[in-house]
């Protein structure tokens, strides 16, 4: 068996290329989400896209627009429910996104369409066409550019929102900006990996990188590198084993996390257990 055989097929090369782009965009986002304590925000936003997609299909609007608005509704609605009740953010989020997902499922079964639910849920990386590739590139590159260029502001927002406000950074704009970027990223990842597995791509690379790094820029590099490796290897494995490519990608990411946790996790733990180890007379 020739392991490199998948590289001979253009559609698999496309899948690896576009999968890697999506993986890097999600990986960079995951670093911010993990540090902001928003890991499940990706899960919530991705599930809540379903009613937006179905409604957009109904009125004949572009599906991506419907999905984006639904995702944003979830993110903003969560904050709104949290602010006007005593509920904590995770509870508000759980109620809002499951409710939206349920609306989506009901709508889906009532509206006759040629949409494939399993493509929405699990993605169809190998069936991605040239138009969709352009779509992904049009969104992914700007999202990545904003995230990377404004990474210091987003980092301060995650690390110390009080300091961000005291030095007059536009905290509200950054907060909602991050939510918009997250929604955009999920929407374009949808066709490739589906709304279930995009959650993993938005958490695992950041979590893995966190174990290995004590600088943020290094964390971004490690997250992106693990994401690309997982995508390339995941698509290859899926070709040889005939399994879902998105599932193989996520499986690889999870395996890399497990490996990191065993190797680096303990190292990181020991290092941080001993604060000020060789301090000099202070």
């Amino acid at each position, binding site marked *: 068996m020739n392991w490199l055989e998948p590289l001979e097929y253009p559609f698999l090369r496309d899948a690896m290329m576009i999968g890697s782009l999506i993986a890097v965009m999600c990986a960079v986002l995951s670093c911010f989400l993990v540090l902001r304590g928003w890991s499940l925000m990706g899960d919530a936003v991705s599930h809540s896209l379903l009613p937006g997609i179905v409604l957009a299909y109904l009125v004949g609007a572009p599906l991506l627009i419907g999905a984006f608005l639904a995702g944003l509704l979830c993110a903003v609605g969560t904050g709104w429910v949290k602010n006007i009740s005593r509920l904590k953010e995770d509870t508000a989020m759980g109620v809002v996104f499951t409710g939206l997902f349920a609306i989506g499922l009901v709508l889906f079964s009532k509206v006759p369409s040629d949409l494939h639910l399993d493509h929405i849920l699990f993605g169809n990386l190998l069936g991605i066409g040239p138009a969709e590739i352009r779509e992904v590139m049009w969104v992914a590159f700007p999202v990545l550019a904003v995230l990377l260029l404004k990474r210091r502001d987003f980092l301060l927002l995650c*690390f110390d929102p*009080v300091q961000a406000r*005291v*030095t007059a*950074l536009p905290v509200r704009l950054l907060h909602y900006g991050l939510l918009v970027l997250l929604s955009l990223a999920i929407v374009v990842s949808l066709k490739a990996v589906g709304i279930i597995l995009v959650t993993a791509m938005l958490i695992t690379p950041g979590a893995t990188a*966190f174990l290995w790094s004590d*600088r943020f820029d290094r964390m971004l590099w490690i997250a992106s590198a693990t994401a690309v490796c997982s995508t390339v290897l995941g698509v290859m494995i899926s070709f040889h084993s005939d399994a879902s490519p998105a599932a193989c990608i996520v499986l690889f990411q999870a395996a890399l996390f497990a490996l990191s946790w065993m190797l680096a996790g303990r190292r990181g733990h020991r290092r*941080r257990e001993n*604060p*000020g180890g060789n301090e000099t007379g202070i």
Partner: protein
Amino acid sequence: MPMNDPLQIRLDVENISVMYGNGHAALEGASFSLSGGTICALVGVNGSGKSTLFKSIMGFVKPRDGMVKINGQPVREALKKHLVAYVPQAEEVDWSFPVSVRDVVMMGRYGAMNFLRIPRAVDRAAVEDSLRRVGMWEFRDRQIGELSGGQKKRVFLARALAQDGCLILLDEPFTGVDVSTEDAIIDLLRELRSEGCVVLVSTHNLGSVPEFCDQVVLLNRKVLAHGPTEEIFTEQNLTSAFGGQLRHFHFEQSTIQSHDGRAVKVLTDDERPLVFGKDGHLEYKNREGREDLLKKRKEEL
């Protein structure tokens, strides 16, 4: 080196009232004014509105009545000029965050930096200068979780220095801090005062207040008293400010015979106790030869 003119700094808290969501008053008609340079202690029990007052000065809470003015302008304007610097409590910070000591101090410069926050030479110089002033330059490449309690506090002080603000808010600066760091912090605050800054310190550490604060604001939802430490920080004022909420220990001659035969009263709000002698004068550490401690505070004002 300060770009903001420190001699101009003035904080006016004008009759502010802040309500919680449930309708209870966090602050009711609180008023006081400070102008640089001064170190002012903000003293009050838990729930007396200290943190609400801080939030009002930082513009996070909008008072229902009244107004906070910094240099005669609304807080928002002062924040745009980065006049206000805040040193958080250790519990407010996620110490596992992947940032180095230098990264944290650089964050103090963001307000002055361009859109992309790319450090210029002047920013790097300010960061180095600030870290050297708090004696943490050698630790610049440490991840922040690898520091001791006192070192962590110094890093955030350095961030406030790098920001070059001249209204500096410190929340419980001595919690979890060793004695040498406490002294170093006090020295630094004195330098800031001599540069014309207004330093407002929220503290439970009543015993250390007369050691370095020249003014005191006693808070219990209202400003009960404010002014020079010597006049305000009296047994009578503190007892009325705290009511039954302070721990009282009354030592009679029968319990401490060695103490010059005098009776002492200890007031403590959890941290270092405040000790009054029988005739109402203050006791403090190493009192011998430093009998005029409070008078000195007044001279500094």
